[in-house]
Every structure is written in structure tokens, then in C-alpha cells.
């Protein structure tokens, strides 16, 4: 699958934003006044910024509101609802923290849980697609939620959650990589099987149906930069999980430590998300003799 920058930005930023909002909502940090404004503001900016980045790749974004209608079957529609409900649930707590109103934090706790629910719906948009075997398994939601936990903990300046998140992330990335690497082969689809021509003999592409790439090939067959895969995986593991977790445990617990760790984590998250798309192979590629 082609790693579109808008979708990488959307999933990485909104995941981290909802992570921070979860820690703020649950009261792990309870900033007051303008510190609260900037802390909550950062969470909202990342979450909303990420969500709006996702609308950049729409063909007709002016109709985006219609995406709220099909929550009964569509994970994308459920995500739209989950994100709006979560942001609304947390709003009174954010206001209360900023203006010192002392309102009850109950909606904050519910909102914190909803933050993880929202990222779960995001992950299911990908995990539900049977036509992309690498995505079609439980490691995708686990990985997305681990990213949320780690990113949120780093931005909220939480040492132990960041360490637990980092360890969870290493395991989740490892599970996603190892399970994903064999997923396509395990599905057992080949050109011969996809066309049914294996009952005649061994099939190869004789001639493509069109002379230059079409939408399908541009969107779902991405072979250009897979050569960087071997180099990017260590970066993903190191920058997203190992380095930030190590930094917050070993270095002094200073704002700068957490800020640097968060930036490094963000780089690793982007690398990992790029791999998430670039390595995912869609079965339609079989018809073109490419994956």
C-alpha cells in the first residue's frame, strides 16, 4: 500500500494526541492555569490536527460530515463518532483545569478510556481489511494502542507509563513484524489461485491490461522503496521505543528530557507507520504479477 503522507501524519499525530489527552483526563498530571492551557492545547492540537490531516486525501472533503452515518458497519464511521465524543467528554475537564473551576473529573476518566477506544477504531480501519493480509490480524490494534500509551506518557512526562509503553511497543512491533512477514504467504494466494488458472497450469503475466499505472497500482502496489525496509525497522524499534524509554529512566526527569524523548519517539513512530503502509501488500497486486 502506498504510504500517503496525510495518512501517516493522521495516524501518528492523532494517536499521540489522544494518548496525551488520556493521561490528562485520567489526572496523571493536573496542570493549572496557563500550563494546563498549553498541555491540554497540545493534546487537542495533535488529535484534531491529525484528524484534519486525514481529510486531505479525500476526493470530496466537503461531504465529510456524512461519515457519521454508517457507524453500524463501518469502522471509519465509528472512528468519526469516537473521536468527536472523546474530545467533547474531555472538554469540561480541560476548561476546569485551565480556569481553575474545580469541576468533577468523572468525564475526564471516561474520556481517558474513550481516548484508547478512539485509537482502537482507527486501528480497526486497517485490521479489518482481509485483502491486505499483513494488516488483517490482532497485532495492528495492539501496536496502535502501544504507540498511544508511549507517546501520551512521554508528552505527559510520566516515567513508569512511558517505560511500560516502550516495552509494550517493542513487543507489539516485533509481533506485527514477524506475523506480518509471513501473512501473505500464509493466506496462500498466488496469481494462479487468484485467477483460478492454476487448474490449467502455472500462470505468469503475459501482458498488462494497461500500458501505464492506474489508480489501483498507484494506491495498492508500492514496490519503489521497499529496499529501505531493512534499515528502517531498527530505526523504528530504536527511535520509537528503546531510546525514549531509556532516556526517561536514565536521564534527569527534566522537561527537556521528555521533550527530546517525545520528538525521537515521533520520528520512530513515523518510520514505523511508513513501514506499516509500504510493506503491506494488497492481493490485487497478484493480478498484475506484482506485490
Amino acid at each position: 500500500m502506498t504510504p500517503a503522507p496525510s495518512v501517516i501524519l493522521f495516524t501518528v499525530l492523532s494517536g499521540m494526541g489522544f494518548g496525551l489527552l488520556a493521561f490528562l483526563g485520567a489526572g496523571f498530571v493536573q496542570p493549572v492555569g496557563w500550563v494546563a492551557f498549553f498541555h491540554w492545547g497540545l493534546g487537542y492540537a495533535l488529535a484534531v490536527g491529525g484528524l484534519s490531516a486525514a481529510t486531505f486525501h479525500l476526493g470530496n472533503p466537503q461531504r465529510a460530515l456524512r461519515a457519521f452515518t454508517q457507524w453500524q458497519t463501518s469502522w471509519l464511521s465509528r472512528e468519526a463518532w469516537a473521536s468527536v465524543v472523546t474530545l467533547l467528554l474531555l472538554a469540561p475537564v480541560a476548561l476546569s483545569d485551565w480556569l481553575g473551576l474545580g469541576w468533577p473529573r468523572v468525564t475526564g476518566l471516561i474520556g481517558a478510556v474513550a481516548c484508547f477506544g478512539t485509537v482502537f477504531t482507527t486501528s480497526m480501519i486497517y485490521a479489518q481489511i482481509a485483502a491486505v493480509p499483513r494488516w488483517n490480524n490482532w497485532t495492528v490494534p495492539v501496536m496502535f494502542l502501544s504507540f498511544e500509551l508511549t507517546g501520551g506518557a512521554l508528552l505527559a512526562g510520566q516515567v513508569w507509563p512511558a517505560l511500560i509503553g516502550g516495552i509494550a511497543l517493542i513487543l507489539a512491533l516485533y509481533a506485527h513484524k514477524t506475523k506480518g512477514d509471513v501473512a501473505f504467504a500464509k493466506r496462500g494466494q498466488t496469481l494462479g489461485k487468484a485467477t483460478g488458472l492454476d487448474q490449467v497450469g502455472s500462470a505468469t503475466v503475459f501482458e498488462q491490461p494497461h500500458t501505464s499505472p492506474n489508480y489501483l497500482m498507484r494506491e495498492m502496489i508500492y514496490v519503489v522503496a521497499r529496499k529501505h525496509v531493512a534499515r528502517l525497522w531498527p530505526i523504528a524499534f530504536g527511535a520509537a521505543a528503546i531510546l525514549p524509554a531509556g532516556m526517561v529512566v536514565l536521564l534527569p526527569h527534566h522537561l527537556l528530557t521528555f521533550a527530546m524523548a517525545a520528538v525521537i519517539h515521533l520520528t520512530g513512530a513515523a518510520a514505523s507507520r511508513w513501514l506499516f503502509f509500504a510493506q503491506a501488500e494488497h492481493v490485487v497486486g497478484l493480478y498484475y504479477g506484482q506485490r
Partner: protein
Amino acid sequence: MTQLPTHTDKKLGLVIDLDTCVGCQACVTACKGWNDQGYGAELSDQNPYGAEPSGTFLNRVHSYQVQPDIGAAQIINFPRSCLHCEDAPCVTVCPTGASYKRTEDGIVLVNEDACIGCGLCAWACPYGARELDQAAGVMKKCTLCVDRIYNENLPEEDREPACVRTCPTNARHFGDFADPDSKVSKLVAERGGYDLMPDLKTKPTNKYLPPRKKDIPQEASLLAPLLDIQATGFAGWLDKVLGKLG
């Protein structure tokens, strides 16, 4: 609604005969021709006369070389379009309700006025049946020529999908799979029509007929009887002498 109907009254779809398809691409052209002028947004082209022409098509014809265990390799042409699946994954993923499957005849359609062009349905389709039009920003797919098959302004023989109507070798057939006595149902039963990627559990309506078994080609040369002529008389003597000299 993106909830799939539990039952459709008819199951309209296509049978594609891989034995007779010659890969002429007439169905591709007829499809684009018809669907470019009536139903929904037009099928745009990008850079049509440039170095990398690209455009939206609802039907693509692949060409494969298949090497059987015995005998010569065969070229098999393989048209690929929407299969109008019973359990269409493209429909349920749609966030806006633009994608739907009709209860009356099972045709999978897109309401372009509700489509936001997110492309998720194209990802969900294992068969590459959906293409996002780059000019209109809405998803395009085979409509089974819904604006032809019920169109009483057309002569009766034209009330079938454009691809079927135009096929010069009768490699494409249109009909109702819910009726066991229909032409398409009988063809599937007689010729062993099959589903594409059945393990993905999409339950496609369209079926493909496998190429018929080919005769085993003769190994011996057709000229063999001629080469075996024994020369007689003077020619025979010459043959013997020259054979000895050689």
C-alpha cells in the same frame, strides 16, 4: 445503508468464459463508452496523449501465459471487473452509506452524491474492482449497466450490459444466478464455473468458466510420411553410392 441485505430477490451478474475470450478489449472500450455519458460522473482520463496516460475504467482485461504440465503454453485473457459479491466488503466499510447493494437485484452501486472519496472501499475490495476517479474525486465501479438493463427506451436485445452486448466472441453472459434455469446458471453448472478467491468469503456473484481442455499436440512432424520415401531405380542406386561415399 451499508448494511448488506440478507437476501436479494435476483442475483444479477456475469459469466465470463475464459475459453473464448480473445482479449480484443472491446468490452473495455464499450464499457468506457457507455458509462462515460450517462450514469454518474464521467470516467476521466489524465494525460491521455502524454507519456503516461491514465484513466478510470470499470473493466480491465489481463493477459496471462499458462504453462500446463503437458503440452504447449496457452495465452488466457482474463477480464476483471466488479463481481457484485453477496458479502461485499466494499459496502460495509463505507462510512457515508454511498456504497450499497440493491435488495431487488443484488447490484452493488455507489451513490456518488454521498461519496467523500476516501478510497477505503477500493482497499477493501480484493479484486481491484473500484477506481477513484481522479477528476471527480468519487469512487467508480461497474454498475452492471443498470441504466441499460431496465431501459425500456432501448430495443430489447440491447438491454444487457455494454460489455456483454459488444463481445464479438460471446465470452460474456449476463443473467440471474438466483434462477437455476437461467442461461448463466446452466452455463456455470455445465462448465464448472468458479469464484475468484473464494477463501476471502466475499461470495462473488460473477463466475468464470475455465478454459476447455486442449488436445494433445502431435509430437511427430507432419512431413514424416514424405521423409520416409525410399528411392528406387537409378535414384536408389545413387542414394546407396553417395551414402557409402559420405
